[in-house]
């Protein structure tokens, strides 16, 4: 008896392609993720390995795609504000701010003085807690399970308590509105921020004593995952990633959005563009944020927090387009809006720093060990909610 074999089955079956490296060794293909514990969520890296060495790396996005932009085009301008919280859920207040700037440009609202100060204070607190937890996660990926991350989260917890007192929610703040902020500061809030800010340098000193000189950290980080400045500029990298390569580009200095021209602060720059520089940049940026916070708390004026001309619902901006951008903790966060004169945007586009900073992942990983891929990925500091939207 003969067995009949379907021709189609034979044709569709292909033996796995085994790639051969230059030295004549077989390459191993590894799918890191989407459920790899180091990928901060659902993200996949298709890595081709020659022994331990990375020959090729292909990032695969889209597992957390939620159709944010299309939903925003069907909803009113106000209804998109709570959705922006869910982009980078570590820094909801900076996301709110970037979107508010874009709509304010489009609709021509102005922001009162006091609201601008509140925005700066909340954004800098956000930057401190984001950088603290980014460092914690970086160390977690290096194998320092828990301890640095817990110290960072202990500090972050205090900041989130302040956010809850002000906005009602710890992470999904939904606080800023077009032409100001939603609610007035609760009684005694500024004093509490003052107490917290006074304690922050101690936390950073402790973190530095704990980590900065650590031989294991230096051995794992220095000279690993180097990004060249020309490639960083060409790829549109922003934020601490770009500044670690030595390029002086901080939108707070370049654009002076809000009232950042009133504050004295320095922009820390790296030299080598490796993981260690990215770590140091974050530590130094936290120190600069503390100095901005101290100045803002001292100078905050009394007054209204909403532009009397602004409306939260039912406004129809004139036909036109606007791009609002800010220096979010992870890089340049921009919102591009086109209005066709109706109550919802014709086009709504997010320029997420996390996604664009991830595009150079392969260039940083080539030739490194597979164990360092996790580390390099962690040093980019991404949130998958923003990468996939």
């Amino acid at each position, binding site marked *: 008896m003969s067995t009949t074999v379907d021709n189609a089955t034979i044709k569709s079956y292909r033996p796995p392609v085994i790639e051969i490296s230059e030295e004549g060794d077989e390459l191993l293909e590894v799918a890191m993720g989407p459920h790899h514990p180091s990928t901060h969520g659902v993200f996949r890296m298709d890595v081709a390995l020659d022994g331990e060495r990375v020959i090729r790396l292909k990032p695969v996005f889209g597992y957390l795609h939620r159709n944010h932009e299309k939903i925003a085009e069907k909803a009113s301008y106000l209804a998109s504000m709570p959705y922006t919280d869910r982009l980078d859920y570590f820094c909801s207040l900076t996301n709110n701010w970037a979107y508010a700037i874009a709509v304010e440009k489009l609709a021509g609202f102005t922001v009162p003085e006091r609201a601008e100060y509140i925005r700066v204070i909340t954004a800098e607190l956000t930057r401190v807690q984001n950088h603290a937890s980014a460092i914690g996660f970086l160390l977690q990926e290096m194998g320092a399970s828990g301890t640095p991350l817990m110290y960072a989260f202990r500090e972050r917890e205090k900041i989130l308590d302040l956010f809850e007192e002000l*906005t009602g929610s710890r992470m999904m703040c939904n606080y800023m509105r077009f032409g100001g902020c939603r609610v007035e500061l609760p009684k005694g809030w500024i004093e509490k921020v003052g107490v917290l800010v006074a304690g922050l340098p101690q936390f950073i000193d402790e973190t530095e004593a704990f980590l900065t000189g650590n031989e294991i950290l230096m051995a794992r980080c220095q000279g690993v995952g180097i990004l060249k400045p020309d490639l960083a500029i060409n790829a549109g990298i922003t934020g601490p990633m770009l500044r670690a390569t030595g390029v002086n580009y901080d939108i707070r200095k370049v654009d002076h959005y809000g009232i950042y021209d009133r504050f004295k602060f320095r922009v820390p720059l790296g030299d080598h563009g490796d993981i260690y520089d990215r770590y140091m940049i974050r530590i130094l940026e936290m120190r600069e944020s503390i100095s901005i916070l101290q100045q803002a708390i001292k100078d905050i004026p009394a007054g209204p927090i909403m532009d009397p001309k602004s409306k*939260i619902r039912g406004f129809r901006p004139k036909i036109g387009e606007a791009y609002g951008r800010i220096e979010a903790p992870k890089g340049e966060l921009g919102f591009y809006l086109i209005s066709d004169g109706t109550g919802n945007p014709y086009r709504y586009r997010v320029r997420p720093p996390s996604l664009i900073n991830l595009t150079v992942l392969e260039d940083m990983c080539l030739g490194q060990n597979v164990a360092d891929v996790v580390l390099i990925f962690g040093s980019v500091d991404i949130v998958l909610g923003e990468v996939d939207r």
Partner: protein
Amino acid sequence: MLGEAILKGLAVTAKNFAGSFVSEERMTTVQYPEERIAPIENTRDFPVLIYDGADPMAGLRCVACQICEKECPPKCIYITKSADKKPDYVGKPQFYPTRFDIDISVCMSCQICVEVCPFEAIKMDTEFELSTTDRFGGLLFDREQLAKSNEYYHSIHPTEAAEVDARLAEEKAKTEAKAKAAAEAAAAKAATAAATPKEAPAKEPLP
């Protein structure tokens, strides 16, 4: 010396470890079901409907204007408007919701319904222990489940509730003064126009 910084780092860990035995405030963990942290006043999670008086259904402030239903970003509010009207807190006849459902499994606690409500009828609750074994019906709250008294609102958000009460009282006083003035004007007009009895009676002005 190699390893010096590691030892320094370990000293930080040791200090933190020992510190948690010495200082109460370093003990950041709260043993949740037995211990609870003090509630923060502005906390919000899911919307509730506020009513005045004793009867929840008669005293609902909601007039079924459906603005929250339209503005809700995830569209989790379902309202059916009544056919008849009943007087609201200023005595003006208004519609009321015959159905007011919120699917709190969809709600994302954004507070936009609260902001857009012109009648101070919908507010945010702080109750978070809402777990249920029924995923669908158990998380679709109807107006009986959503109705909460003004006293309850005062107990969870005292500052905000006091402001709301002041605003409502002011509005009521304004409406009453307006109605009174209108009635007086109408009476005066009726007195002067007594010679021409055919004139139509003065209409109640809309508040």
